[in-house]
């Protein structure tokens, strides 16, 4: 019966070698969670920074959850994509972070990674774009199969999340 309200924004991203970035995001929760209102997933616009390195999206996130347990606390998974001059999109990084569990405003930095692939694929990526992507998006947050992957670092996605918690104290959860 406790409620969690996540209000915030995906500020932007830094440190990506590619420009023209956009971000697909989604929130994954356990079975105990019920979305009361808001959108679970979305996609930002493509931002091409004119000044500086940071791509700004300022993409709003507004979700209202009800939960009957603590398991499966909302997890935010991100996919940063870059769009090249031909309008093709290629993966720039996967990221994952938990939604903070304490109320208040939080600044989150979510580092990202992407699969590296074989040298052939790397070469192909460098010249013709594309590149290896995860077949199953849930690998981003489940992590069970990750040890198979060879990855390389992407940039960092910056998030600003504000949390409102309600009735957690009723069930003995202090926050």
């Amino acid at each position, binding site marked *: 019966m406790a409620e969690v309200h996540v209000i915030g924004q995906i500020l932007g991203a830094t440190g990506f070698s590619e420009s023209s970035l956009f971000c697909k995001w989604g929130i994954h929760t356990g079975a105990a969670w*019920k*979305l009361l*209102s808001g959108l679970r997933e979305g996609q930002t616009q493509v931002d091409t920074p004119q000044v500086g390195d940071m791509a700004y999206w300022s993409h709003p996130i507004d979700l209202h959850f*009800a939960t*009957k*347990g603590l*398991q499966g606390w909302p997890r935010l998974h991100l996919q940063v994509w870059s769009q090249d001059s031909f309008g093709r999109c290629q993966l720039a990084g996967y990221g994952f972070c938990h939604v903070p569990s304490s109320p208040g405003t939080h600044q989150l930095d979510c580092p990202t990674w992407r699969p590296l692939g074989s040298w052939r694929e790397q070469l192909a990526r460098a010249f013709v774009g594309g590149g290896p992507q995860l077949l199953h998006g*849930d690998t981003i947050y489940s992590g*069970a199969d990750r040890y198979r992957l060879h990855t390389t670092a992407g940039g960092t996605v910056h998030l600003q999340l504000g949390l409102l918690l309600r009735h957690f104290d009723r069930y003995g959860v202090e926050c």
Partner: protein
Amino acid sequence: MNPKEEKMKIITEEFLENEEDAPVEGLKSSKLPRQKRKKQPPTGGPGEMVSGKAQDDIQEEPVKQEPETQLLSMKAGRGPRNLPPIPASSRTSFAEFSMRERMREKLQAARSKAESALLQEIPTPRPRRLRSPSEKELETEFGVEPSKEALRTQQEDGSQSYSRVKHHEFIRKIKTKPLVPPGFPSAEDAYNFFTFNFDPDPEESEEKPKATAADKDTQEEEAGEEEEPPMQEGVNKTDEEELLSGKDAEEFLVGLDQTAADFVDVRPADYESVHVRMQREKEILFIPSRFTVPTYKKLPENVQPRFPEDEGLYIGERPEVSRTNQNIVENRLLTQEPERGWFGDDGRILALPNPIKPFPSRPPILKQEQAVHVELEMLYKKAVNYVTCSQHMIGAGEAPGIFQLDIDISGLIFTHHPCFSREHVLASKLAQLYDQYLARRQRNKAKFLNDKLQALRNAVQTGLHPEQPHRSLDTTQKAIHEYKAEIRQTRKLRDAEQEKDRTLLKTIIKVWKEMKSLREFQRFTNTPLKLVLRKEKVDQKADDDAYEAEIQVEVSELLEEHLEDYEQKMEEYRMAYQHWKAWRKAQRAKKKKKKQAVVEHPDEESEEPCPEAEPCPGEEPVKPVPPELTEQAVIEQQVRERAAQCRRRSGEPVLVPELSLAGSITPNDQCPSIVFLLVFVGVPFSFEADGSNQLILMTSGKVSNSVAWAVGEHGVPLSPPLSQQIIGFRSALKRADAISSIGTSGLTDMKKLAKWAAESKLDPNDPNNSPLMQLISVATSGEAYVPDFFRLEQLQQEFNFVSDEELNRSKRFRLLHLRNQEVPEFRNYKQIPVYDREIQEKVFQDYEKRLRDRNVIETKDHIDAHRAVVAKYLQQVRESVINRFQIAKHHFLLSDLIIEEEVPNISILGLSLFKLAEQKRPLRPRRKGRKKVTAQNLSDGDIKLLVNIIRAYDIPVRKPTASKFHQQSRSSRTFSEKCAASPAPHSPTHGVDYPLGQVLVRPFVEVSFQRTICHTTTAEGPNPSWNEELELPFRAPNGDYSMTSLQSVKDDVFIHVFDEILYDVLEDDRERQSGIHTRIERHWLGCVKIPFSTIYFQARIDGTFKIDMPPVLLGYSKERNTMIERGFDSARSLSEGSYITLFITIEPQLAPGETIREKFDSQEDEKLLQATEKFQAECALKFPNRRCLPTVIDISGKTVFITRYLKSLNPPQELLDVYPNSPQATAELVACYVSLIPFLPDAVSFAGVCDLWSTSDQFLDLLAGDEEEHAVLLCNYFLFLGKKVWLMMGNAIPEGPTVYVLTWEQNHYLIWNPSSGHFYAQYDTFCPLKSVGCLIGPDNIWFNIQRYDSPLRMNFDVTKPKLWKSFFSRNLPYPGLSSVQPEELIYQRTDKAAAAELQDRIEKILKEKIMEWRPRHLTRWNRYCTSTLRHFLPVLERSQGDDVEDSHRAELLKQLGDYRFSGFPLHMPYSEMKPLIEAVYSTGVHNIDVPNVEFALAVYIHPYPKNVLSVWIYVASLIRNR
């Protein structure tokens, strides 16, 4: 004691001291070494070295001096370099002080130098000794000097020019300052001297030591050289006093430049040869040799070295010293102190044992750490090659690592042990042998081989006598050959096995015998072993036969083999023999030749046999021996021997040994002696008496144990995951690994898992897969049970705050959720309460009711059962369509999100410039376009509906009431008549009848929208002009201003025209002077109804509309007197009605909803679809505003070509029967019938999603539709009637984009409005259709490519290709598309009784409503009047409202003579109750509040086929005239 060495040491010490002092304490501190040196000569004595050194120092100064100073300078160099910066850094008192000190000294030195310069011309160091009594001081000076020199040379270059300048200046100064008294300068003087005259202090302070150094140079070497200026400067500085005292000094200074060359002395570089130096060093230094010292040197004379270690004494280990060092030390000791007892007896240096322990004596601290943090211990693991392997274990609930392997050691059996006796040894041997025997017997290899042999033999037999002749001989031969080879092999193996068996048996028996004998010998038994040989009797005869047969077979086989062998050998022999023969022949021939050749040598012939071989001794083949055929008897003999050896003899019983522990052990007391004969381990012993056949036995034994994984508390085996190897193999197969192929989360998805299992063809019987299989079977069979270990979120239930039910019960959450889902009831719910208790249960009632009633047809609202069904159906279609397009609505284009102001270009700028020149108030103002607002941030009150009512034409005028009425009641004269009449000069007193100057009507307009009412002022006359703007607020349903919501607003804007009548109600004529007492009555004349959706989609509605008037309007008539007819004759004569000019818009302008940009699937031909797209694109390119719609969407959401809708369909037979002779009348009747089908715009029902076209039968079933359906049905009826007819797409007022029907009559075109049933001639100015986009016939589409699109100015001749672009042409012929319409329409006769019932119910409801609307007044019903009206309504229906007015009025007059009557019939199609109520309300009949008013209301329903109902409502108010 070596005096020489002693000296050496001292000297070096002194040097060291000197070195130390010199740099640190400078010149001042040089007193200490000086004293030491003074002391030294007496102590040191006249040693060679000292004297030598002294001499060197003093006498040989020119030579010796250099190295010494060099040496010193090397060491001292470091010190003084630090000094100068100290004064430079700051003017501290210390700096000043030290500076002064040094100055003083330098002055002193300079003075002495100057003196010496005066005394001596030759600048040798020698005079210094004469002059200066203290050599030491000089020495120290030397020590300092070079360092300063070095310093100077460093800075020289930079300061040279500068100092030169200063120098001149300085000279001047000195010259001007001759009066300074001699002696030391005071501190202030010196200070001033150094600070004031030179600008930069650091330079100066550095220069000073330089200068002192320089002047010392001059002292020693006559200071000539290149560095003149600094030197002179130094001289100037230091020799201040002397210069002042002695005039020659001045000369010296001034004349310096001229005499520079005199001071220069060129010298060679000083060099001391290495050889010389070595020589001298050799004299001084002692270098101990590195070579080993002979022992005798180390020991006293005549003493032999003795080694205590050899004598058995303990000698500690000597410390490690390298041999060379040892030698050096020994040599040194021998030379230095030979008398001291450095050496031990063994001739080596005495040494204590090595004190270094090989291991650390410190207590290990490891244990302490361990005690503290056991868990923090770390284990180093080597880097290993990473092998990709899956370690996933489904449902590994236990943490890995807590495995437990239980090993149960049940027993240990020794095969040998030190405590074994001989008997034990034998027993164990016997046991082993027996085990072996058992094992062999179990395998029974011999028998297996025997069987095989038999089989092979059979095979050979059949092969030899083939029953299948077709078999090729070759293969049989080959096979037989192979078989035989195998038989041979197998036989050998069998023999070997049999032999082994037999020997084993023999050995067992032998060991047993040995044991028995041993037991007998030792007379006791200490092992329980007992061997029993069981004899199995065999059938003697059969055994014999078998044995014999076996031998025979074997013999024959062997014979065969031998024969084969023999054959082969014979062949070889023959070959060889041939060869040999040939050779022999050749040999003979040769011999013959030889014979002939050597006849003379007969002696040689005797040797013939020998020399035969001579010519080719190696090649001579031996004469082959023919092979012998082996005798059968021999072979048999052999076979029998072997059989006897390895096989049980025939008739011999089969021996089966059985070992048991049944034997009794002799009890201890019965043992003959206590001494056991023990067999030692590792010691050879023998069972034989003679000691032969020795055995060496080692302790050995067997451990019997059992191994198992332990079982945990919950019965879970504590075993590690399945074997890595197996899983690795599976993951290599990739598909076989569930997790890698479907992902981890897939494991929770049963369907996925099952699918994967099916795909990867898991072996359901594989125990590895059993849990998976079980799970899948459980999941697919639909049982609720899911094994625990497959849950990813374990312990979910235990940690839940609340149960699911409680969560679902929360009203707040439910409300939030429903709102989020955009459930219509909650879509725009705002401010959901925070607490559950604040939410009332009834919030959900509507929603729950709707859910419940989804499939229950509610007849209450609809009265008519059929319509209720239809409404339900429509609702369902609507829902499905909306769901279908819900997603499509979320696809946004860039323009949906971003409104970008156009960048002003030159044309816009130009236009704006023109605007400057525009008239401020144009004579004919035009409306300007406004900015569109997306309906997002709007709220109640933001949107207003602007209705601009401009003028009206042809309003009906009041008919003069019958004169008798008028005359009867004066008071009932209308006030307006009076008012209007009074100003008229020639108006009569009773001007009612007067045709001229009479105010015929005083109309005003009332606009009602959403129950808000506004009205204009009252104008006068039948053609009034108001030109007024009315503002009505707009409120969206549920406060939702989203696009979809606005599109689905069903409200209509009613524009009513009323006539305002003022009645004078003044009772007393006397009061007429003092007051006016009138009553205003208003009479409804007509109305215009415009749906809000039209306004919303059109954004503005501008035009002249026909006022919808009742067919009978009592008391009013359309006067066509000549007085008011002016220039409109021609236009008006054609039209019969009143018109109103309006402008309606919404403020702010709202962006209309977008049409769906979605492609629909279609069953049309692909080519046709492409053609339509092309056609549409071409049309849009030429005339973007003209409508062209080759394809439409049917009710199931499929794209259909539009011509398929047009097909001749039969109208109801009743309609055709009415006017069998007049096609025109029939056509009108049909049109009327079509118009009676209620109008329901798609845009409203489908919330702007799209325009759906239903077929005619669907339309008739639904009994609702918009223009398209009406038009299609009308068109189809006309086709049936044999008219030439087209669908006409265009824009009309007020509908907007719409569809009309065009028919070709005999010589003219008629435009039919299908929703109203009216028709217009082509040139009718008041035709609502304003533009035509395209015409659609049953077999073609024509697009309007004429210049004008107004029907007034168009040519409808579609055969002209220049005017009409046809879709199907020669290039694309009409393919003969089948129609989507049914073959025939079937009409049911409407139940008249039901209609009558409905009629009564409607009447009742309306009456109740009217009473409801008059809450404060009594509503009386005039039954008489009502019945009169009721009779009249069917007449109206029959005549369609034409030409009945007069008779009707007359009748009314006759019956209701006493009443003033105002009322009118309303005619409308029936859909449901609400529009009827709304229509009655909007007339405002109920608004009369005259106390004695009475009402009359009559309803008539005329049923048409297919449940189409025409509803007539006659509503009237009656006021009794008094």
